[in-house]
């Protein structure tokens, strides 16, 4: 066996970052607070997000230092996500600091005339914690199929240059939109072979964000509609380049979502283990029954695999996501695209399994509103759909590793 291409362990710096995030969440994000918030008018916790984004600097982790960020990599972002998953925290880190930030970073290097200045400006404001962003794309979008949103743009009145446009259309199922100050949307120019990634400030006239009654109340989705809303082009393309930026950002998010799923599954396992040690029936702890022990042992094995797969995906993405087999991942069986697909194919189901076992093995209390188990179940089930289902990632592997489908 060759040496793994990326380290699957945690560095000291990563462990320090984890400790800081965990301490913050222990203090500011107890289950009681999350349970209270999910039925409030502000499902995302602004104060917690501010502390995470500014004080710990999580918002700018992926932003280069010259733009005021930490210049860190996917590996550090993954550790933050593990902790956020463990606490099922209602903050827009994944949607803003990971996915939207990734799209802006890609737009920045796409070299579009006049556009990179907008990307740089937005990245600086994201890194400082001044604004929060969201990529206006369905949370159920997959990196393997066209995003297909019906959004168009037209040239604007041109007061501040060619980047000014007017955007119309709508996107459903957008996560993190309610917490966003800026929406990034991929739109096409009617009648022309041209598309663009456009930044629209949510306070602009014509922007409406309509919350949907969501399965996951800790990361609700919303419908976003643009009615001739003013925006600025971040990246322009004569073909479908803006689409490829969006799909790259989704793939990047999918790879890192695995770490959130890992953290979520770990909480479910440890909470369940603690419960079955204490809960007594038939005059003994229910955790002494082999039927339960074997289920928990199997879950522990799955989570061990999830840790290896999630770390591998984060490491491969940190080494540079290039989108294709063989890219950025020497020694692996086929690049970071494989690492992402493997991580999602495995971790998506592991998180759901862990949350379902958590509910079942808690017995009656596990299906009450007051116990936090349902928060994890709903988050896990929504995460399974997010950025490609495990089945879609497996199907993608067929092409990536040459296991072709029947004719």
């Amino acid at each position, binding site marked *: 066996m060759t040496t793994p291409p990326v380290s699957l*362990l945690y560095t000291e710096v990563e462990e320090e970052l984890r400790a800081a995030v965990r301490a913050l969440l222990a203090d500011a994000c107890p289950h009681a607070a999350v349970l209270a918030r999910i039925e409030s008018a502000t499902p995302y916790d602004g104060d917690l997000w501010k502390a995470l984004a500014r004080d710990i600097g999580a918002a700018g982790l992926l932003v280069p230092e010259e733009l005021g960020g930490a210049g860190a990599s996917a590996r550090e972002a993954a550790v933050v996500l593990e902790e956020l998953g463990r606490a099922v925290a209602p903050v827009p880190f994944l949607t803003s600091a990971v996915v939207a930030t990734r799209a802006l970073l890609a737009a920045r290097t796409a070299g579009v005339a006049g556009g990179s200045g907008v990307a740089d400006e937005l990245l600086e404001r994201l890194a400082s914690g001044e604004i929060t962003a969201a990529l206006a794309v369905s949370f159920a979008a997959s990196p393997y199929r066209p995003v297909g949103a019906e959004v168009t743009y037209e040239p604007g009145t041109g007061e501040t240059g060619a980047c000014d446009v007017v955007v119309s259309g709508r996107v459903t199922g957008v996560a993190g939109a309610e917490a966003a100050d800026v929406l990034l949307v991929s739109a096409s120019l009617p009648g022309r072979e041209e598309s663009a990634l456009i930044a629209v400030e949510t306070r602009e006239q014509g922007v409406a964000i309509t919350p949907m009654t969501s399965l996951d109340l800790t990361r609700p989705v919303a419908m976003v509609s643009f009615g001739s809303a003013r925006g600025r082009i971040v990246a322009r393309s004569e073909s479908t380049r803006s689409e490829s930026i969006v799909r790259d950002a989704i793939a990047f998010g999918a790879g890192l979502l695995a770490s959130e799923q890992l953290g979520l599954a770990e909480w479910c396992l440890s909470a369940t283990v603690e419960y079955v040690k204490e809960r007594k029936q038939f005059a003994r702890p229910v*955790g*002494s029954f082999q039927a339960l*022990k*074997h289920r928990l*042992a199997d879950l522990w094995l799955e989570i061990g695999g999830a840790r290896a797969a999630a770390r591998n995906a984060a490491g491969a993405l940190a080494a540079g996501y290039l989108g294709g087999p063989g890219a950025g991942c020497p020694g692996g069986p086929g690049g970071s695209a494989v690492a992402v697909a493997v991580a999602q194919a495995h971790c998506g189901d592991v998180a759901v399994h862990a949350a379902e076992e958590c509910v079942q093995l808690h017995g009656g209390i596990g299906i009450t509103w007051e116990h936090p188990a349902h928060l994890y179940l709903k988050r896990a089930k929504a995460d399974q759909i997010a950025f490609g289902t495990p089945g879609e990632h*497996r199907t993608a592997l067929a092409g990536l590793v040459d*296991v*072709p489908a*029947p004719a």
Partner: protein
Amino acid sequence: MVRERARAFLAANDPSAMDRLDFLRARFDAGLAWVHFPEGLGGLGAPRDLQTTVESELRGTPDNRPGRIGIGLGMAAPTILGFGTEEQKERFLRPLWTGEEVWCQLFSEPGAGSDLATLATRAVRDGGEWIVDGQKVWTSSAHNARWAILVARTDPEVPKHRGLTYFVCDMEAPGVEVRPLRQITGEAEFNEVFLTGVRLPDSLRLGAVGDGWRVAQATLMNERVAIGGASGHRTMIDTVCETWRSRPELRTHDLHQRLLRLWVDAEVLRLTGARLREQLAVGRPGPEGSGMKLSFARLHQELSGLEVELLGEDGLSYDDWTFRRPETVDFVGREAGYRYLRAKGNSIEGGTSEILRNIIAERVLGLPAEPRADKDIPWKDLPR
């Protein structure tokens, strides 16, 4: 330093100009057999992961045929190192490593499988000797073995875990009878071993009288690491994928979905193993090791089952049912039908998957043990 040593050794010992065994003995004496063992016992007292450096420097030179002496290397050697006297280490380790002396394991009995501590083979002291009577089973390599590691009951009056003692058994001693035990694959990798009035000198005892359970635990832990840590977890998935690619007429949508699932499982297990090795290399072994054998057994069984099904009509035939006694244990050799049947043993040998789940649940997750009826009762009074 290890690399230089390996190069210097190779410069001084040309394998093409030497007898194979002389080369291996010289390699042992140079401390390049297992670098993490102490000096003078085939090692250099170096970190274990440096062994890969030695192996890459000595690639292509005669090896000790590890497939033939796996029990000696994986189980007997670490136990002798951990619990043997200096004389025992000097006597046994060198010929064990060179493969001159094959070892087998006399643990399981017809009445003591998962509950190994209930074993009934008796060892009774007679002056400076022990007289051993009993029956052992599932003994791989017994027909080739010069020595065995043996656990026997020396005190039936105390609870079962406390009355055991660990020995090295001379397989050439009078009273040792080895009979092949044919498996579902058609061949006989393992044997039944009958011990009738076998006399062993006390110098063959490993560890203190009555301490056999503790010594055996060390052996079993090493066994699981050896089985679960075996490289080549991807071998079987690669084999199935080769068939899939070269025989498009066999493909169905159902098999495709299942194969992709198993491809992911195999990759996740490979990564888990890679992470475990990284932890070991930096001296922070994780508990994941106890799970590797369990995952490996399940993956092998599902993959080999899928492979036979994929083959369709070819899956109806079997390569060879001839009753043979193979020299080596090979999980992936031969054809799909053999792999399918051999893999059934993976969740039984070296601790059943059910026992391993108990171990994970109790030792890793800290869940309470089942209430037990046999803990404080003298072995002789247990229902059997």
